[in-house]
C-alpha cells in the first residue's frame, strides 16, 4: 500500500491490523489448549505473552512511518470541525485574511506583470540592448543612443550578435482616409528577426530594401490595419502616404505586439533614409537591439563591442574619443512606476501584518480558554509537539482558506486596479494571474498562518501542565496578557505608520495643489501640429504657413488668442540647452543650462504669464531685426545675479547670437507642480521668437511645434473647428494630442493623488482592523479579570474607577505602540520623501493630527469593554469563583 493510499484506506488498514492480532491470539490459544491448558487459562497466557493489544497496535501504526501524515489529516478535519462550530469567528477571520491577502496579491500581480515577467519574445534572455557609453558625463549622463555610422560598424563587426536598429519617425498619414498623426519607426530589415516576432500578414523588409534608393515599403501595425484598411486582406500591396511620400504596404504586425514603450503604427526601412544626420558620426538617435547568435555568450558580445569601440576611437578621435559600446539584457523600462508599485506593496503588506496580529491575538485568546482541554490531552498522553502541530495545522487551514478567497478577490480586483492607475501602466496587458502569482499567494497565506498560529503553538509547548490542571476553573492569564499586549502594540505601531504616511501624502497634495503654476491654466487648449511634408521643404514658406495658421486660428469662434510654442510646460518633453553671457563660448560641460522655448509673441498672453520688467516679444522681432529674448526671474537671477538683466546679452548657440534681453517674466513650473522645486533640474527659462529661428533649424523646430489657444468656451470644444481650419489644401495637416492646460497641470500630481488615495484607503483599513484588534484583546483581558473587578467593587470601587482601571491598561499598550509607530512613520516619511516628488520632511502637525485620530479611535474601541467591566455585579462575579 502506498503512503497516499493509507490516508484513504485508513479503515481497511485498521481492520487488517486487528485481524492480524486476533489471528495471532487465537492461534496461540489453540496451541496452548492443544497442549492441555484450560481454555480460560490459555487465553490469559496468550494475552500475557503478546502484551496489551492496543499498545501493540499503536506501535505498529507508528512503525508505518507515515504517522505524521495521518495525524495531519486528522488535525485538518478537526480544525474544519472547530471552525464550523464557531462560524462567527471563522467568518471574521476569513474576511480579514481574504482582504489582506487579496490586496497583497493584486499588488504582486501588477508587479509581476510589469516588472518581473520577462519580455514576451522567444528566448528573451538572449535579447540585448546596445548603447554607446562615454568615459565622461554630460547633463544627460554617460549613456547615448547610437549614431548611424557607429551602429553600422558595430553591426558589421560583431560575430556573436545579430544587431537591429531603429529610429523614431513620427509623422502624418494622409492616405488612405483622413489625415492622422502616428508614431512611426525607421527600422533595419532584421528587427523582427532579432525579436523573434512573426508578422501576422505579409513579410518583413528584405535586406536589399534597407538601402538608399530601394522601392519604398512599409509595415503597418495590426491596429492601423484594422483602423484604416478595415482589416482587409487586400491591404498588402496597397499604397500608404506617410509624410507626403507613398509607400507600398508589405506586412502587418501581430496583434498586441509591444516594443519599448508602446507600439508604433508605421515601420519604414531605416536604410532608405538619406537625411544628413544619419551620415554624421556625432548625431545620436539610433536605438539598437540585438540577439545573441546560437552558442554565443553575453561576455563574448561585450568583448567584441569593446574592441570595435577602441578601433573607432582611434579611427575617429573627434567623435569617438572616450566612447565605447555596451550590451546588457533587454528589459522593459518601467522605472517610473517601479517605486509607486513597491510603496503600495509595502503599504498593503502592513495591512496584512495587522490582520495577522489581529488573528494571532484571537487565536491566542481561544488557546488560553482551551487551556484545560489541552492540559487534559497532555495528561492523557498527547505529546506537546503533537499539540503544537495541531495548533499550527489549524492556523494553516485558516491561512490557506483565507488565501484562496484572497486569490479570488485578486482575480476580480486586478483589472479595476489597473484601470484606476493614473496614466497608462506599462505592459498592462502582461498583468495576469499566473503561476508566479499563485505561488506568491500560497506562500503569503502559509506565512500568515504560521505567523498567527505561532503564539498559541509556542504557548502549548511551554505551559505548566500541572499548574493548569490544579488551577481549576480559575485561569492563569499572566503570560498571555503580556503576549496580547505585544500584539496590540504591534498593530498600533503599524497602523500609525500607515496613518501618518497617508497624512503626509495628503498634506503634500494640499500644499502642491495650492502652488502657483506661473500660468493661468483655465481655458487653454494645447495641441501638437504636423505641417504638410512639402511645406517643410522651404523655410520661408514654413514661416508663412505658420503665420497663416495663427491668423486663421484666431478667427475661429471661441478663440481669444492663439500662439505657437515648442515645449509646453508640464507636458512631457523639454528643451535644455547651454548658454553663456560673454562672447567667448565656454566648454560644453561648463555651460549653465536653460530651458529654451521658441514662441510666437502672443504666447505670454495665451498662457497668462506675468511681465515683471521690460516688454514681451512682439511682431517686430523677426529675422533681419535685432535678436531678442525674454527671460524668467530664475534665469535673471542665475545669469546676471543682482544686475539689471534688461539690455544684457545671452548666447545660446543657435546661430542668431547674441540675444538681447528685452523682458523679464514670471517663472513657469515647467516640471509640474511637484517636480519644479527639485533643485537638480534646470529651472531657468528663456523665450525667443520663432520668427528669428535661422533657416537651417526651421524644419526641425516646426516638427516640434504645438499650438496654445486661449478660448472663451470650453477648450476641448474648440478642437474640431480648429482641426478643420488647420487641415490644409492637401488634407495632410493635423492637430493631434489635444489636451487642456488644466488637465496637464492636474496630471503632474496624478501620482501623488493616486498614492494618497490608496494610502488613505489602506490607512483606513488599518485603523479599522487595529480598533477591532484592540477591542477584542481588551474584551478578552477584561473578561479574565471579572473576579478581580468583582472584589474591587465589593471593596467599594466605583464604576468610574473600574473604567479608568481598564482604560489605563489599554492606554499603556496603545501609547507604547504609538511611540514605536511614530518612529516607524518617521522612517517611512524619509522613504516617501525619496520616492515621491514634492514630499517635504514630515511636519509635527501631521504627526499630531494623525496620531490624535488614531487615539480617538483606539480609546473608543477600549471604552466598550471598560464600560462592560464597570457593570459587573460583584455578587455574581464572586460567586463564579
Amino acid at each position: 500500500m502506498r503512503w497516499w493510499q493509507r490516508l484513504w484506506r485508513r479503515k481497511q488498514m485498521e481492520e487488517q491490523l486487528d485481524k492480524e492480532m486476533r489471528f495471532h491470539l487465537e492461534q496461540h490459544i489453540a496451541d496452548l489448549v492443544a497442549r492441555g491448558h484450560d481454555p480460560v487459562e490459555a487465553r490469559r497466557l496468550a494475552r500475557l505473552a503478546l502484551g496489551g493489544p492496543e499498545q501493540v497496535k499503536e506501535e505498529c501504526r507508528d512503525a508505518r512511518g507515515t504517522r505524521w501524515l495521518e495525524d495531519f489529516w486528522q488535525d485538518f478535519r478537526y480544525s474544519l470541525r472547530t471552525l464550523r462550530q464557531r462560524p462567527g469567528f471563522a467568518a471574521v477571520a476569513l474576511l480579514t485574511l481574504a482582504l489582506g491577502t487579496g490586496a497583497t496579491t493584486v499588488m504582486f500581480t501588477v508587479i509581476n506583470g510589469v516588472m518581473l515577467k520577462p519580455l514576451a519574445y522567444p528566448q528573451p534572455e538572449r535579447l540585448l540592448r546596445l548603447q554607446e557609453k562615454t568615459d565622461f558625463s554630460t547633463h544627460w549622463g554617460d549613456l547615448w543612443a547610437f549614431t548611424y555610422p557607429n551602429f553600422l560598424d558595430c553591426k558589421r563587426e560583431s560575430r556573436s550578435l545579430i544587431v537591429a536598429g531603429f529610429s523614431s519617425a513620427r509623422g502624418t498619414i494622409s492616405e488612405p482616409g483622413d489625415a492622422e498623426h502616428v508614431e512611426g519607426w525607421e527600422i533595419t530589415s532584421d528587427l523582427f528577426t532579432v525579436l523573434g516576432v512573426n508578422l501576422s500578414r505579409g513579410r518583413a523588409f528584405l535586406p536589399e530594401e534597407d538601402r538608399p534608393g530601394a522601392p519604398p515599403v512599409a509595415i503597418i501595425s495590426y491596429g492601423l490595419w484594422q483602423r484604416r484598411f478595415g482589416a482587409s486582406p487586400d491591404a498588402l500591396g496597397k499604397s500608404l502616404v506617410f509624410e507626403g511620400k507613398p509607400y507600398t504596404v508589405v506586412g502587418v504586425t501581430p496583434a498586441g505586439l509591444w516594443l519599448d514603450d508602446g507600439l508604433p503604427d508605421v515601420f519604414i526601412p531605416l536604410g532608405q533614409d538619406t537625411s544628413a544626420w544619419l551620415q554624421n558620426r556625432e548625431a545620436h538617435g539610433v536605438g539598437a537591439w540585438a540577439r545573441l547568435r546560437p552558442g554565443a555568450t553575453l561576455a563574448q558580445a561585450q568583448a567584441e563591442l569593446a574592441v570595435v569601440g577602441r578601433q573607432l576611437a582611434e579611427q575617429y578621435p573627434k567623435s569617438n574619443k572616450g566612447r565605447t559600446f555596451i550590451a546588457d539584457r533587454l528589459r522593459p523600462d518601467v522605472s517610473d512606476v517601479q517605486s509607486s508599485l513597491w510603496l503600495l506593496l509595502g503599504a498593503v503588506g502592513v495591512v496584512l501584518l495587522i490582520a495577522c496580529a489581529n488573528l494571532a491575538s484571537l487565536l491566542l485568546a481561544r488557546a488560553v480558554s482551551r487551556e484545560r482541554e489541552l492540559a487534559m490531552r497532555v495528561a492523557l498522553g498527547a505529546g506537546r509537539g503533537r499539540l503544537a502541530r495541531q495548533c499550527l495545522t489549524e492556523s494553516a487551514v485558516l491561512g490557506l482558506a483565507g488565501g484562496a478567497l484572497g486569490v479570488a478577490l485578486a482575480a476580480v480586483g486586478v483589472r479595476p486596479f489597473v484601470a484606476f492607475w493614473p496614466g497608462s501602466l506599462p505592459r498592462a496587458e502582461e498583468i495576469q494571474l499566473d503561476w508566479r502569482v499563485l505561488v506568491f499567494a500560497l506562500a503569503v497565506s502559509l506565512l500568515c498562518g504560521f505567523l498567527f498560529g505561532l503564539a498559541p503553538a509556542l504557548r502549548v509547548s511551554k505551559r505548566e501542565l500541572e499548574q493548569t490542571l490544579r488551577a481549576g476553573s480559575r485561569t492563569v492569564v499572566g503570560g498571555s496578557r503580556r503576549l496580547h499586549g505585544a500584539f496590540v502594540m504591534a498593530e498600533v505601531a503599524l497602523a500609525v505608520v500607515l496613518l501618518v504616511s497617508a497624512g503626509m501624502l495628503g498634506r503634500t497634495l494640499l500644499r502642491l495643489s495650492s502652488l502657483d503654476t506661473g500660468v493661468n491654466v483655465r481655458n487653454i487648449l494645447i495641441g501638437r501640429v504636423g505641417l504638410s511634408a512639402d511645406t517643410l521643404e522651404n523655410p520661408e514658406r514654413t514661416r508663412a504657413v505658420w503665420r497663416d495658421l495663427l491668423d486663421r486660428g484666431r478667427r475661429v469662434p471661441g478663440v481669444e488668442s492663439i500662439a505657437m510654442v515648442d515645449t509646453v510646460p508640464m507636458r512631457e518633453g523639454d528643451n535644455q540647452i547651454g548658454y553663456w553671457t560673454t562672447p567667448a563660448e565656454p566648454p560644453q560641460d561648463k555651460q549653465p543650462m536653460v530651458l529654451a522655448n521658441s514662441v510666437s509673441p502672443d504666447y505670454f498672453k495665451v498662457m497668462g504669464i506675468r511681465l515683471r520688467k521690460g516688454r514681451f516679444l512682439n511682431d517686430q522681432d523677426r529675422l533681419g531685426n535685432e535678436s531678442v529674448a525674454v527671460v524668467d526671474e530664475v534665469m535673471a537671477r542665475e545669469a546676471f545675479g543682482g544686475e539689471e538683466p534688461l539690455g544684457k546679452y545671452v548666447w545660446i548657440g543657435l546661430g542668431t547670437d547674441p540675444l538681447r534681453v528685452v523682458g523679464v517674466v514670471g517663472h513657469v513650473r515647467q516640471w509640474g507642480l511637484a517636480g519644479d522645486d527639485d533643485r537638480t533640474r534646470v529651472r531657468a527659462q528663456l523665450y525667443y521668437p520663432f520668427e528669428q529661428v535661422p533657416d537651417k533649424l526651421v524644419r526641425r523646430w516646426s516638427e516640434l511645434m504645438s499650438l496654445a489657444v486661449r478660448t472663451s468656451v470650453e477648450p476641448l470644444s474648440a478642437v474640431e473647428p480648429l482641426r478643420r481650419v488647420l487641415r490644409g489644401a492637401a488634407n495632410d495637416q493635423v492637430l493631434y494630442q489635444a489636451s487642456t492646460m488644466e488637465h496637464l497641470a492636474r496630471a503632474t500630481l496624478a501620482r501623488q493623488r493616486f498614492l494618497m488615495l490608496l494610502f488613505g484607503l489602506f490607512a483606513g483599513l488599518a485603523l479599522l482592523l487595529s480598533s477591532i484588534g484592540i477591542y477584542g484583546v481588551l474584551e478578552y483581558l477584561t473578561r479574565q479579570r471579572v473576579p478581580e473587578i468583582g472584589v474591587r467593587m465589593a471593596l467599594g470601587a466605583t464604576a468610574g474607577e473600574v473604567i479608568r482601571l481598564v482604560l489605563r491598561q489599554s492606554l499603556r499598550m496603545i501609547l507604547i505602540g504609538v511611540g514605536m509607530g511614530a518612529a516607524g512613520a518617521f522612517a517611512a516619511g524619509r522613504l516617501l520623501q525619496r520616492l515621491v516628488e514634492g514630499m517635504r520632511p514630515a511636519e509635527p502637525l501631521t504627526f499630531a493630527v494623525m496620531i490624535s485620530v488614531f487615539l480617538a479611535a483606539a480609546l473608543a474601541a477600549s471604552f466598550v469593554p471598560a464600560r462592560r467591566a464597570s457593570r459587573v455585579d460583584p455578587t455574581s462575579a464572586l460567586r463564579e469563583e
Partner: protein
Amino acid sequence: MAAQKSDLPQGTLDLLILKVVALGPVHGYAIAQRLQQVSRDVVQVPQGSLYPALHRLENRGQLAADWQETETGREAKFYRLTRKGRAQLETEAASWLRLTEAVGLILGMSEGGSE
C-alpha cells in the same frame, strides 16, 4: 526454566525476522513460534515487539505481505522476503558474523597472555 534467558541485543530482531522469513512465506504467529523453537528458549523474543518490527520492515520494503489461507483454512497475513530484504539480510548477517567472531576472539584471549 532451566537456563537464564537473555534479552535480544538491539537491532538483531530485524535480522532474525528476515532470516526466518527467508525460508518461505510465513505468518506472524509462525515467526514467533519459529524464533522460540530455533533459539531453544535461550533468547526471549517479546511477542509485543514482533509486530511493530514486521510493520516497520514492510514499510521499508524489505518484506512484502498478502493475505492467504493457512492449512487450517483460516486467513492470515503472510510475509515474504523482497529482493531488497534479501540483500539486507545478507549484509546484516555478514556483519553480524564478523562482529561475533571479533568479540569471540577478544573474549578468548588468555588473561595477561600478551607478553
